[in-house]
């Protein structure tokens, strides 16, 4: 392999400087009883061309969204990623930097994080954002931890219309946090504010999703008000690309706004790496998990940026830290910043309007073709649930044979929806492709 830089002569000179005869001597501190004593049983090394051939062969056995007409969403979306995102992320300075512990070495990176935090605060109308979390699931667990410590309460309430994977991750973290998790069932595709208010009694927080997992628009201001009535923190899980047309959580009384960032700037990449975002009102600044970049000045008074409020973090506070998070998703969050800057406020609104218009067209076409919407009374954004008149898995298989992926089989997560498909329509889909979807499903 070609990633090592020492010649034989280098090695000899170095061993001599160290004062040992062989590299093995350096390993004598490892007790002989615990050494492996045989070569690792790994396949032979591949040269670079062989490696590319091998991985190309593996990649070719996947059907990516460029090889079918895909309406698959359910949390990860086939939105367009602009070329400038690839160009910026290919810069080795960003790609190969570590967490900016030494701010004078990393002013560009720290400024980018500060700009990202600003973009997230603008999208959500919150006061503070961290530098990113792992993904849209773990930021929900982070929010619960913030809420537990902010309220001293030990119950969290999740909407059943919150992405099932998000709920599953919260439930996995909950025993360690000492939290009880309860769920509020959906009523005709959304959450009933009165029911939520009841459930929120003595809760640390309430997490709902806007648009929700079914694509439906929740009565989000009423849900936030219901949480606030019970003095539970209202947490909205939002889609960043919806926030040009949908109201920001900060404008309807939420304490925290969280979400999966993938739709803004990241490829689908079989589920990761992506970034999760977490933003809050200013009163929670010192309870925030994760890295935060802050503005300051150097000794000449010139503006600069540093990782700040580090006394919250594990490397200072250890067992009393607000989170154990260390590695985050900075590069993916940078992609988000570039994408959002490329869009600008105008582009973000247009993107939202296009998703709205195309998904309405898709609902109409499918209705015309004789399919019944699962929640016909609900407004939606870019995704909606439709009954396909037979087991959804069967319908999906048949459509795939015609080169169309109609979407996600909701029966995997929800009882009584075995015949329902969750259809996602991004700006990359065309009316022709939607016509094809209706045709294929009806065939």
């Amino acid at each position, binding site marked *: 392999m070609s990633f090592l830089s020492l010649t034989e002569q280098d090695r000899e000179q170095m061993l001599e400087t160290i004062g040992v005869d062989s590299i093995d001597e350096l390993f004598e501190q490892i007790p002989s009883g615990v050494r492996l004593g045989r070569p690792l049983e*790994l396949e032979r090394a591949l040269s670079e061309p062989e490696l590319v051939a091998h991985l190309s062969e593996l990649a070719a056995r996947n059907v990516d969204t460029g090889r079918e007409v895909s309406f698959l969403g359910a949390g990860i979306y086939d939105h367009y990623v602009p070329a400038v995102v690839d160009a910026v992320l290919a810069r080795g300075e960003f790609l190969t930097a570590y967490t900016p512990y030494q701010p004078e070495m990393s002013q560009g*990176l720290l400024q980018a994080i500060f700009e990202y935090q600003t973009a997230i605060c603008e999208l959500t109308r919150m006061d503070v954002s961290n530098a990113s979390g792992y993904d849209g699931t773990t930021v929900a667990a982070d929010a619960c931890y913030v809420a537990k410590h902010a309220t001293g309460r030990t119950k969290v309430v999740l909407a059943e219309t919150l992405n099932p994977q998000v709920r599953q991750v919260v439930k996995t973290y909950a*025993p360690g946090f000492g939290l009880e998790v309860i769920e509020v069932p959906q009523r005709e595709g959304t959450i009933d504010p009165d029911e939520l208010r009841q459930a929120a009694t003595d809760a640390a927080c309430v997490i709902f999703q806007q648009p929700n997992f079914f694509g439906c628009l929740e009565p989000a201001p009423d849900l936030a008000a219901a949480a606030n009535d019970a003095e539970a923190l209202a947490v909205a899980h939002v889609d960043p690309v919806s926030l040009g047309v949908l109201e920001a959580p900060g404008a309807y009384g939420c304490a925290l706004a969280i979400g999966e960032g993938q739709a803004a700037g990241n490829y689908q*990449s079989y589920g990761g790496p992506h970034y999760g975002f977490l933003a809050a009102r200013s009163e929670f600044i010192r309870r925030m998990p994760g890295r935060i970049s802050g503005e300051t000045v150097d000794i000449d008074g010139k503006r600069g940026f540093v990782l700040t409020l580090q006394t919250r973090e*594990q490397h200072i506070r250890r067992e009393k830290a607000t989170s154990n998070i260390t*590695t985050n998703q900075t590069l993916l969050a940078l992609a988000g910043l570039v994408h959002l800057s490329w869009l600008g406020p105008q582009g973000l609104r247009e993107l939202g309007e296009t998703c709205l218009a195309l998904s309405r067209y898709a609902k109409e076409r499918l209705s015309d073709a004789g399919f019944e919407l699962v929640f016909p009374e609900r407004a939606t954004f870019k995704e909606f649930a439709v009954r396909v008149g037979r087991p959804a898995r069967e319908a999906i298989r048949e459509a795939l044979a015609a080169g169309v992926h109609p979407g996600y089989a909701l029966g995997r997560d929800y009882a009584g929806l075995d015949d329902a498909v969750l259809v996602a329509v991004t700006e990359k889909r065309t009316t022709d492709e939607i016509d094809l979807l209706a045709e294929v499903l009806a065939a």
Partner: protein
Amino acid sequence: MKLIYEKSKPGRRASSLPQPGLPPAEVPEELRRSSPPRLPEISEPELVRHFTALADRTFGVDTGFYPLGSCTMKHNPRVNERVVGLPGFRDLHPLQEEDASQGALELMWRLQEILAEVVGLPAVSLQPAAGSQGELTGLLLMRAYFADRGEGHERREIVIPDTAHGTNPASVTMAGYEAVGVKTDFRGNVDLDDLREKVGPQTAGLMLTNPSTLGLFDEGIEEITKIFHEAGALMYYDGANLNAICGIARPGDFGFDIVHFNLHKTFSQPHGGGGPGGGPIAVRERLEPFLPVPAVVREGDAFRLDYERPKTIGKVRGFCGPFGVFVRSYAYIRSYGPALKEMSEVAVLNANYLLARLRDAYELPFDRHCMHEFVLSGRRLKREHGVTTLDVAKRLMDYRFHPPTIYFPLIVPEALMIEPTETEPKETLDAFADAMLAIAREAAEHSELLKEAPHVRPVKRLDEVRAAKRPILRYLFGEHDEPEGSDEPRELEAQKGA
């Protein structure tokens, strides 16, 4: 330089989007956005220049030597970026049908097999997003395991050496356990007498980094294992320093039950300025039933996702984990094959060479050969010349090096933790050693050069106290009163034409 928001001008934009020509669809009024987000309004040429300027003000491994201890800042092969960009990986939806994602599933299965072999433990979950999430996952596995055995209420404590990364105790708290500290002895090993006092029926497990953050392999590891196994407790291996021992020794062989990998350290996923990372875990058979779902399994020539694990702790992250990270790390390991051992050997050789060159000018708290990294103390420079380790670190920037990790581990005063990695040539190591020796001389002769450093970066030393006391965490668009004195620097910057 200006923020992108300060370059914004109403009416500019970079994006062009499809216009499907459909009638507009309205959002119900009470749910409609009331005022637009103030995202930058900027053209594409200016967008590209802005981020290029930010890149110019950022230092990566591609820029130069980055000996950040415990972070394993090795070269990131570019072929890995090429393969991760193949459309079959990049544009694959995580909920794609299993028979239409066989290549992805096979890659994950192969990576699991490789990781199992490298650490000597049979069952792997790739799901955790980073090392610290691997830790939390491992601790949740311990909880589930002991609960399953009816010992959950009794075993409440996790033993952690005083050299541990801060993530260990933070993860312990998040898992609902209590952290119990154990001391380090005069050789840099875990103090066995102290350890024996701390371990008992209340102990759920140990978290150990080995080699430790001192860069030393614990010589008492066999005895440590005995103590924990006799107590019926589990052993967790923090894989942050796995780069030292690949192909040489395996945590599973020396008694560990759970191991996490840092794919962004040992297996060359680029750190991306803080992430992404990957924190897979490998476990012994008895812990396998508790691993996160889905598991990637092989059935004949096909691969599938198995959700039917009744004892699973659940999910710690969406889908199967950070797949793009798996592609890069798999490619990296396949580039080495069994010669992964040479990777670790050279990492250890490079570290010992640097140590040999620096040991006389700086203090070495534990006088032993090191593994892949070592810790020096700047205590003497502080005592004799009033120069701190922070000053040394900042002065290194003037020599165009990224500083090492400083003030960690906590048990070494004025610590400098140096990890050169295997990919650096001897010339770079020599240039760094020469710089460190020159700085030690400067400390004696021109200490102001250190105290005022850095001199060549875009900013001088930054006021971190002020940043924390009066936090400004986003651009305020001039709408609020800013904390006192904060407009002054902007004027200064403007005068300099920056």
